[in-house]
């Protein structure tokens, strides 16, 4: 039976989007469970930020085998930034990486992000999405910093709440503290 390539690709494309959509929704269903179990005294944002830390800790471990200093500090930072952007893209975002104006500064820009849409659907505040992204990346960097013995920081520069426009995060070396 001959293959209708267009049909097969569109089928896979649909499956990919359905899978991403279901994963996003599943996150918010579990978020609801966690908030209920946390009790009335717990703030939903705190619960979500704790989840972001757990995600970041685990994802950070998977980053470590790829960390490589052979291309120097700038090369290392660029590889790291691309890994962070790649993570966003895997979730359905459209993130790119570019050098910042200052040396050792890299910007991760996300032009499109599905998370605010899911958040809205499940009644989670929009700012939570951006803060959780920031916390997750910060947690990833904790292990990467400790592993490579390079203090790193990432800061949210700009967030577009509805997932349209541009979210910008700045990755750079932190001052030795």
């Amino acid at each position, binding site marked *: *039976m*001959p*293959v209708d*390539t267009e049909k*097969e690709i569109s*089928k*896979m494309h649909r*499956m990919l989007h359905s899978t991403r959509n279901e994963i996003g929704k599943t996150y918010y269903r579990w978020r609801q469970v966690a908030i209920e179990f946390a009790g009335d005294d717990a703030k939903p944002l705190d619960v979500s930020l704790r989840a972001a830390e757990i995600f970041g800790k685990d994802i*950070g*471990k*998977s980053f*470590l*085998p790829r*960390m*490589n*200093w*052979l291309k120097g500090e700038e090369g290392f930072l660029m590889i790291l930034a691309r890994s962070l952007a790649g993570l966003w893209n895997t979730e359905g975002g459209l993130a790119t990486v570019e050098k910042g104006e200052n040396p050792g500064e890299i910007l991760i820009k996300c032009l499109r992000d599905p998370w605010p849409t899911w958040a809205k659907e499940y009644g989670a505040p929009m700012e939570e999405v951006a803060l959780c992204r920031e916390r997750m990346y910060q947690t990833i960097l904790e*292990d990467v910093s*400790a*592993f*490579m*013995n390079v203090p790193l920081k990432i800061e949210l520069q700009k967030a577009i709440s509805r997932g349209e426009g541009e979210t910008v995060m700045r990755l750079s070396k932190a001052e030795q503290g």
Partner: protein
Amino acid sequence: MAKTLFEWDYSDYPGAKTYPHLFKPIQIGNLMVPNRIKYAATEDNLNGHDGFVTDAGVEYMRQRAIGVVGGLCFMQGVYMDEKRQGQGYVGQAACWDDKFVPGLKRISDAIHEAKAVAGFQLMDCGRVGAVEVDYCHGPSAVPQRLRIFKPVQEMTNAHVKTMIRQHVDAARRGIEAGFDIMEISGIVGYLISNFISSYTNRRTDEYGGDLRGRMQAVVEIIQGVKDVCGADIPVGIRLCSEELLDDVRGNTPEESMETYKMAEEAGADYISCTLGWQESIYPVISRDIPMGNWIHLAKRAKEHVNIPIQMAYRLFKPGLPNEKIGAGELDIWEICRSMIADPHMPKKVAQGKEDEIRHCVACNLCLARLFRDAPMTCYINPVCAHEWQDEFANPKAAEEEKEVMIVGAGPAGLECAYMAARRGHEVHVYDKRDVIGGTLNEAKNAPYGDDELWTCIEYQKVMCEQAGVNFHLGTEVTEDLIEEEMPDTVVLATGPAYSRIEASGGDSDKIVNLLDVMSGKVEVAETVVMYGNRKPGIGGALHLAKQGKKVTIVGKEKSAGFDVNPSFKWRYMIYMRQNGITVYNDCDIEEVTDEGVIVKAFDGVRWPIQCDTVVISDRGPNESLKKTVQSEGIELFVIGDALIPRNLSSAVHDGYRVGIRL
């Protein structure tokens, strides 16, 4: 006057004439060692999970001690802390209390019975330890690169001093247990190497900072151990000559050489030259690394220190170490995996029986097993870790002599043949090919060192000749032949049956068999689909990619090379990427068309792949002749790939197990 423990005279050993430098004595500290051969300490996971020595561990060591013909024989490194943070293997021997001394003495006694020099090794596994507890320890809490290892707790200053004391106490117990030479393990990511490396030591106290600070704990350990050992028991250390951690800013090779000098200054009587960590991204000892690839590091080490230098690392045959010792570039030939594969390897060298050596094939299954909390196993040596089971290691002669027909002269059939013949059976091996070796004749043509697999057949051939096995090559076994011969037992070792593509186009001329491809019997076009994603398919794909073909692998297994042990599989994954091979797992071929094939994934998604040749490497059991044998009432065994297609190791182990049962 140096102390001599046992007198050895090698003048009657032919190997001592062929390799004179291997069989001349050497002084280490105040100890005179009769030859230049060392079985290097190797974990085997054969001890109790409580750290006590077992019969299995003692007999394993006894055979290696016989093998070194008077040389150095080191037992596995012991862990030294009661909290077990330094324990890296579930079956690692312990030495944190005097209660372990009697068990350890059994090992030194076994080594001495073979008139060999008993070596004791102190090994805190550092950041790769804590196999039984939640946290390992290290100079700094640097996160683990590999998930398999536990989180690291930074040692306090007091904890470091305790650890140094534990080394000294354990050394004292080793002496009480009768060992003759002491060794500190500072390799591959264990605690000593953690202290030395700029990657894992970020301390600011006296045990960190510059290289001298990072060496401080090591220096104190060497000096403390020297104090308890006195003048007659030499103390050596295994140290990285290159960490291969430049990607994570580890020590430079120049720094490593400085550590050698500092160890010598601290009183070390010899250095075992090693390289690489378990976290290194470079391969060091797998089959794809050429023999002798690292021997130049021993020469460099000798240029920096005046004490004896020992080294292993892909030195499987005696020629090169003999040459390098003669040239003054190495002092002692260390052997690890080669003596796992054949515990008597150096003894056979001495006896001039090199053709009787069962050579290691550098697959690293032994390591893969240890890292997964399993007892030592050797891919190629079925007796490994069974030395203590006499019925397995030294099977008795058969009670009843049988006429045994073995169908297939591949590794399974040959292994079974010589074992059965050795036990008194009349064994006849048939093969439709004119040569022995079965599908290894083709498999050995795969790149990245697979030619070394053929050493298995060379060994089995010699064993069969010695055992009086009868060969009938170029003879296909048929129903008529079985009825005519009517043997008492038939062993089917025919190798696998290659799959067919049960789909439209399955009879296409573009479909060829892997064996014909690997032997060069058929022409292969420029674009190829390899059907089957196990080891044979990967080997075949790499073979073709090396010829410049564009190769795509399509296979039903969920991951390519799932039948390859993890300690080697990562090499294949890299080579497939480097050679531009695309892999589709969890897929089948739905149709063979004029343009190529149509692939169908497990979830029903289909896509075309253009190709001009389809190579079948997928295999199934081979059941031909089984019914005939059964209907004649003849005892039947099916072994190797004929039973279930697996790998060389399974073939050898199947053959051995049936050979001792017949």
